[in-house]
């Protein structure tokens, strides 16, 4: 087939030659300024979903909180993200029986700043359903809170989760973080001793600090002055140094310590431990060379695994004595020799792994980790969650690998991978995916876990956001049979 000539012919070509530099300059100029989109994001779909949380509702059921990141800033940058509460109450029985369509949103969809991160919950135990103790209890916060950062606006968002799962955002919902352009990402919550505080990790290292402490409840906080207690929560109490940019945080309540993984390392991979419970003075750094709060290094994963860059971390469920003696860390692997040659972290990965660490104390009372196991994973492993405890057994850990598109279930009781959701095998795929399709969607970004009843049987549930497929995959498993885990349905699939 022959194409018809371009309209304008030879004259048009000459005109184009004259206008070309002008057009090029114009494009260059356009490229130098930010293209501002003012449109509001649609609220009937997920748009580059990132953070997700399974919310045990005050009403007794479960809800799902999903962030849309507006990653490409197609919509208004400051309000183009969304936080939506998705209903999980609709009975579903088979893998692909959900008709294509928008997620079943509960209440209004919140418009939030773009580039939201992982979601952390702080649930007031006073609002627990009768006879039920919800996980993630945070006495004193007065309501159920969701916490997540915006890397675009350097804010900590703290919307309220109402009894039925609706999300509301009052006047104090957005907390401006004092460290600007610091790439805040991870959030951990400390709820102990009358204190309810959030700790935000900033990926960009700064002399002003890499962790910001935000007070979520002040009434019973023994460290606050009367004036501070009178301030409306949440409010920023301080920022402090962790020594390196912080990628992820995990709070260890029995020791009042904040464990952090660093960002931007290439010659080591230290696991930092912030001793929140140790009294110190800000002048200690000058006088004794000791930071305040005290920061210890519990171990350097690099000594065991060269080329490791630490990503998400999570403690095992507490043992019978309430201690968390295992730490799971997702690591991305780069070529360490190339890193040394170029003097920085190479831009590409060569692998990923789950590092299983034993946590203990030195005789001097400082935290220390030792290597228990290294489990290879799909590339791009970053976020992980520990599933609810199993009686008499080690934990199950779910890890998503963004690059390879995997969801890996690691069984710490057996020390082996129990199940991997990766590319569909076609005809043999139990969920009916076409061959070669990623079962978790493209680029699974984050995940949430919960345990709940389904038709009289208690299952563990895993919810995985797919960044590029704009979906949430729902996986169900019997805690004692993780290798039989199956995809139950997909949320957010748009025809």
């Amino acid at each position: 087939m022959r194409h018809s000539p371009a309209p304008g012919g030879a004259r048009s070509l000459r005109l184009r030659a004259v206008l070309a530099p002008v057009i090029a300059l114009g494009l260059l100029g356009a490229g130098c300024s930010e293209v501002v989109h003012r449109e509001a994001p649609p609220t009937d779909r997920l748009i580059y979903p990132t953070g997700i949380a399974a919310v045990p509702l005050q009403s007794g059921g479960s809800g799902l909180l999903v962030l849309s990141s507006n990653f490409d800033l197609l919509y208004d940058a400051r309000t183009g993200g969304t936080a939506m509460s998705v209903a999980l109450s609709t009975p579903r029985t088979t893998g692909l029986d959900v008709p294509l369509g928008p997620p079943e949103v509960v209440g209004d969809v919140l418009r939030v700043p773009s580039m939201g991160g992982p979601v952390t919950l702080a649930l007031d135990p006073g609002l627990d359903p009768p006879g039920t103790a919800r996980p993630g209890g945070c006495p004193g916060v007065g309501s159920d809170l969701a916490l997540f950062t915006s890397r675009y606006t350097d804010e900590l968002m703290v919307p309220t989760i109402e009894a039925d799962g609706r999300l509301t955002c009052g006047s104090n919902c957005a907390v401006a973080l004092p460290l600007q352009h610091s790439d805040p990402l991870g959030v951990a919550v400390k709820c102990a001793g009358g204190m309810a505080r959030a700790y935000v990790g900033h990926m960009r290292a700064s002399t002003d600090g890499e962790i910001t402490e935000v007070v979520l409840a002040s009434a019973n906080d023994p460290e606050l002055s009367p004036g501070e207690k009178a301030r409306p929560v949440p409010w920023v109490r301080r920022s402090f140094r962790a020594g390196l940019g912080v990628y992820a945080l995990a709070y260890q309540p029995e020791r009042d310590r904040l464990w952090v993984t660093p960002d931007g390392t290439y010659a080591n991979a230290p696991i930092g431990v912030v001793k929140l419970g140790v009294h110190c003075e800000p002048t200690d750094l000058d006088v004794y060379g000791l930071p305040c709060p005290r920061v210890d290094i519990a171990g350097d994963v690099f000594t065991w695994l060269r080329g490791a860059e630490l990503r998400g971390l999570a403690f095992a469920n507490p043992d019978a004595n309430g201690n968390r003696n295992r730490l799971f860390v997702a690591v991305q692997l780069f070529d360490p020799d190339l890193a040394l040659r170029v003097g920085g972290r190479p831009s590409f990965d060569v692998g990923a792994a789950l590092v299983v660490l034993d946590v203990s104390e030195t005789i001097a009372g400082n935290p220390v980790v030792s290597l228990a196991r290294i489990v290879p994973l799909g590339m791009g492993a970053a976020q992980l969650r520990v599933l609810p405890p199993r009686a008499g057994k080690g934990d199950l850990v779910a890890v998503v690998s963004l690059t390879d598109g995997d969801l890996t279930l690691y069984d710490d009781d057996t020390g082996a991978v129990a199940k991997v959701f990766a590319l569909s095998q076609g005809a043999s795929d139990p969920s009916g995916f076409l061959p070669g399709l990623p079962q978790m969607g493209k680029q699974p970004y984050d995940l949430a876990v919960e345990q709940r009843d389904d038709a009289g049987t208690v299952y563990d549930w895993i919810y995985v956001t797919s960044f590029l497929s704009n979906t949430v995959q729902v996986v169900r498993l019997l805690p004692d049979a993780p290798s039989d885990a199956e995809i139950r349905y997909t949320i957010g699939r748009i025809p």
Partner: protein
Amino acid sequence: MTRRIAAALLALAAACGGNTGKPGMRLGRPSGIAVFHGVLSPAGPIQAPGPLSPWIAVANGAANELRIVAAADDSTVSAPGRFFPLAVPTGPRPERLAVAILPVPSQLPPGGLPRPPTAAPDALVVVPAGTAELELIDTWSGLPAVVATIDLSAAVGSTVEVFAIVGAPALEPAAGGGWQAAQDRAVFWAALTGGRLARVEVVRRNAGQPGSPVDFGAVDVRSTGGSGNPGFDAVGFGFSPDSTKLYVATQDTIVDALGASGVGVAEIDVTAVDWTTTVRLIPVGGPTVAVAAMDVMERNPVAGQANTYPVPPVAFGAYSLDKHLAVGLGPTRRRNLYAALDPASCGVGKPIACGIVVFDLDGGALHEDPAGEQAHLSPLNIPGVALAILPTRPPATGNEQTLTPTDAPALQIQMISPGTGQTWTESLAAVPSTDGRVYIVDLSRLFTPSDRSYLRGDTRTQIVGLQQARAADPEKAATFYGWYIGIEPQPNQLLVNSSSPQPLASQTVLEGSLWGPAIDPPSWPGRIRVTPGYTPDETWTAAWQGALPGLQQRRGVLGRLGSGEVYVAVQTRIVAGQQPNDVANLFDPALGVHAGDPALADGDAGAADYVEIYPDTFADCPLSPPATGNIPLTYVEARVAGFLPPVGCPASGTCPGTGVFPGGAVRLAADPCAPGNPLQPGDERAVTVTIASSGMVLSGQALGYAGRPPIDLALSLPPWPPPSTGGKPGNGGVPDTQQPHGPRIPYVLQWSSETAAAASCPLDPWPTDPSSPVFAGCLEGTACRTACETLALARKTRRLFYLGDLCPDHLAFPFGQCSGSNTGECDTCEIYWPLAPPDERADQAQWAGAPVYSYDWEGRPQPTGPALEFALAAVKSGADKGEDRIIRGSFIQFQSKSGMLQTSRRPLVSGTATGGVLPTGIVVFDRSRVPGRENDGVRFLVSYVDNLVLDFSAGKGIGDVGVIQ
């Protein structure tokens, strides 16, 4: 357009028809590797299969397939389309591979095991991740594919997974007694979850016909435990050379058939029908993560020959790797078990160091220490964590093997090429580690060779830096001047930085302008003595009244018990009902806190350590003026008079808010808050504390507390004005210039018997119950505390590695001309590591008092000595400045280098380290049996998570490695 299409077709045809352009392996997260013999075409199934050949199968974990390359030349087997490598589809995420030989009569000697050359296809099985499915691959028809699957979960009756799998001969009774491999049969042993082992038989369908298909046979799954015993989960397998014993590495407790219980390796007699009744515990010192067994010819000391120069010829051909180690072979093979210890249960502070332990199966004990020193052979140190142990014997032919010239009958030995020079050995092992390297262990010499010399040149074991520094605390350092702490290499000499010392009688020490060249030149041996094999890579600090490691600026409590004792415990303050946190075990002598008499002078044996107490407010504990009156202290000072045993929360009821210290406490000589605000019984106040030694304390950056070196405080520097007070050691550190120079008082940090110390230290292991009665027997002044501190220091000064370095040829240097400093005319080993006099050195006088290295002790081939030995001294530089005492916290610091760099191999592309982050599998293949590749030697093939396979021989150089991608 037509021409373009034609050109493209031509190019395509050319690509299809040529032999160039073999596809790469296109690996996707390789998770396992195996070598098998099979019938296959290098061009893939499109062509007729060739003869039986060796192949390498790599499990592509990310692509649910196997890739295959020719073991002879690492060339990839093509798919029919030739543009891509052949993919053999498997179950999801193939993770483990195993091969078993199904022998035919030509490879079966009477009553024996299969021998090369292999004459029939092997059985190759694949296990997908998270399953107990064994997939059998067709290795006989030229069309590799999964042809049978067996799910061991069905045999168990519940969902299980395979942890580990290994192939082995199927044994049957031999006519002449013993056991032999059965023809056309083999077995796979698989470790299953739940403490189970499975024995899966594979059988050639038509006996004696190599081209016949193979089928799964009988399956036998049994628990490794008995009644009430959950059994143990296997994480690694090894077989005895005769294949009758299966060795199982496990991190679990083993309860064996005789009722013995413990950790280590389980031995199972696989010839028994009910093999679970034959489980035997082999206590190797801790839980294990990898295991191998081997009959090895070891080099042993040659009696009567080790104490002579020149070293007599040794048995391994022309090379004498160990000039000072006169050793020989045999006389018989030793049945050894090699096991990698679980890193969680070994190391400094634990009863055994980490690494690969060697267990003498005939002797029933850990291998003896060839140095005759420690209770057993030190574990062979492997950086990172060992993932597997793969031993091998010499190649069948080629230039990487030879026969010993002096043994009768001659023994076949193989070449090994560390960076320090090629040598020969009988057996070696490759050990992939989590750090990405594959380490080579010389099993016949029982050491890990080094890629750099720890005896010669700049890489030798040595001290590389020395500097003195002020106290970190500016409050203290503000008054620091006038005093020098340094090393006293010989009487009346002081070295305070990495410079040459000068006799103090002729030169005034000038601050900031101290002397010349690098430390430890040959002409000044012994300033800080080191010992190859013991001295670690470490940064050392010797501080005057320094904070004890881990006890600087710690949160603590200061209180008084109802019984009147005033105490300090290092812990976050307890909240009633909660356990205290950040607890330092102050009662543990390993921390190095010393109780004593406050009246004794600083640094004297028996003097009490200091406790600096920083109250939250001075209203809590008013500051008393310090004794010297001119040091602006912000802390209240106390002395350690004794110890209080740990006190935990009661088993029931609310934990009280005071008087609970699970790590124990130090008892103070006096109430530091009196008289301003004395402690009342039951009081407990939150404070910050530092515990400092009464005199010098040595600490290592990694090792922590390393003892209390003495210091010569009588050393003086003329011209020297009269001191304000006459001083001598024992009067508070004030120098006595009127006295003769004090004696040089060496401090020796050296290993001593852990067995003896452990026998007198009931605190090891630390009792988990704070109310344990053993604490009461370990109060201040008891032998228990001395023994426990000795034990802690001994564990920090263990042998790190056995020596196997090469010294220069002694005979190349003329006798009597070695000045002790000119390396051109001396055997450098003699300079750095002098033998005990007499020897041929010309300058005997200069070497008087120098340390000697006992290579020749009673025929022991390994030198022993201290990790560090040095003497400290301090001087005041002038009358017009400085204090009459050394400022607390002043210190000297130096670094020691072990010189060891364990020989390893890693992926290199064009000589540049490339990838090789985490090994996922290793297999060995004797390529010398391949015609035309005789000199390739025994090849180790290692799959890596970052999509490559490393191919190397231990006999080839470090840079001579292949990478398959």
